[in-house]
């Protein structure tokens, strides 16, 4: 009798230990991995403009990395004072324009890695002639946003 009880107990124990394992085996494991959007933009650092040059290469805006959501893009806007300032005599300035393909550049949207915009800087000859001697500088701030494509 005791032997029978022991066998039944062992069989029951085995059965219960097997049930959870088989239940686990039939479950589906879903793994979620979220890729956060990220990007990297290269902006021009500065440029030296030869004296009396009416046009000079300013640099390139380039998308170096871009992991973007489907309906999003990168907007790069340029905020410039539009004047180069004499380092020694700040009252002396030279107006300039930043151009892309001979048109004034203000902003551009980008959607993928590798896209770029080449920029030139233009100064009129008459403005060079009016300028005092010395070194002129201007820093430009680029505003970079992650925006809807439309």
């Amino acid at each position: 009798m005791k032997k029978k009880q022991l066998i039944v107990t062992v069989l029951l124990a085995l059965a219960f230990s097997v049930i959870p394992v088989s239940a686990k085996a039939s479950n589906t494991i879903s793994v979620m991995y979220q890729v956060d959007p990220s990007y990297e933009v290269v902006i021009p650092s500065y440029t030296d403009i030869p004296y009396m040059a009416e046009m000079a290469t300013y640099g390139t805006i380039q998308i170096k990395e871009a992991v973007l959501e489907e309906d999003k893009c990168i907007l790069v806007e340029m905020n410039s004072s539009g004047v180069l300032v004499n380092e020694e005599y700040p009252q002396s300035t030279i107006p300039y324009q930043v151009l892309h393909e001979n048109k004034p550049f203000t902003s551009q949207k980008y959607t993928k890695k590798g896209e770029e915009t080449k920029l030139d800087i233009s100064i009129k000859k008459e403005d060079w002639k009016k300028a005092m001697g010395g070194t002129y500088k201007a820093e430009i701030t680029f505003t970079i946003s992650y925006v809807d494509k439309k």
Partner: protein
Amino acid sequence: MKNKKRILILSDLILVLVIIAVVICFWNKPKAVEGDEPAFTPVLEPNAVVQTDGMDQTAEQIEGIRIPGYPRITVEADTTDVIMNLKNPEGNPCYFTFEIVLTDENETIYVSKMVEPGKAVTNVTLSRALNKGEYPAMIKITTTSLTDGLPMNGANVETTIVAQ
């Protein structure tokens, strides 16, 4: 008498030799040359940590300044000590100074010191804790040339800070 004279001559000789040695030392002392001193001393961010991105140093150098984008920054709510990744990418010709401004209130909540290229500030102490929610913000990146300390072009990166 003779001995005294010898001692006197010897001491004079030693004195002359010492004077010559001092003059030679002074003459050969390296002079401070104008331009030897560094053009400027950057005030570096002490909390910045090295963060390389595997950029091939032998590859063609990028002409320009690499600006990392921050579409969203998630931080812990209700605490001033938060973790984010304010990075100056490797190879840049300038130091970065980061300023985080909450655009709705026009409130600056963090300003870093200068961060070298290839380094990042990851442990940030905000001026105030943020409650749970989303905050439109601007990361103002001011640049300073590595060589002469002069400002270069900069960037304002729009982002959303998510406090949770």
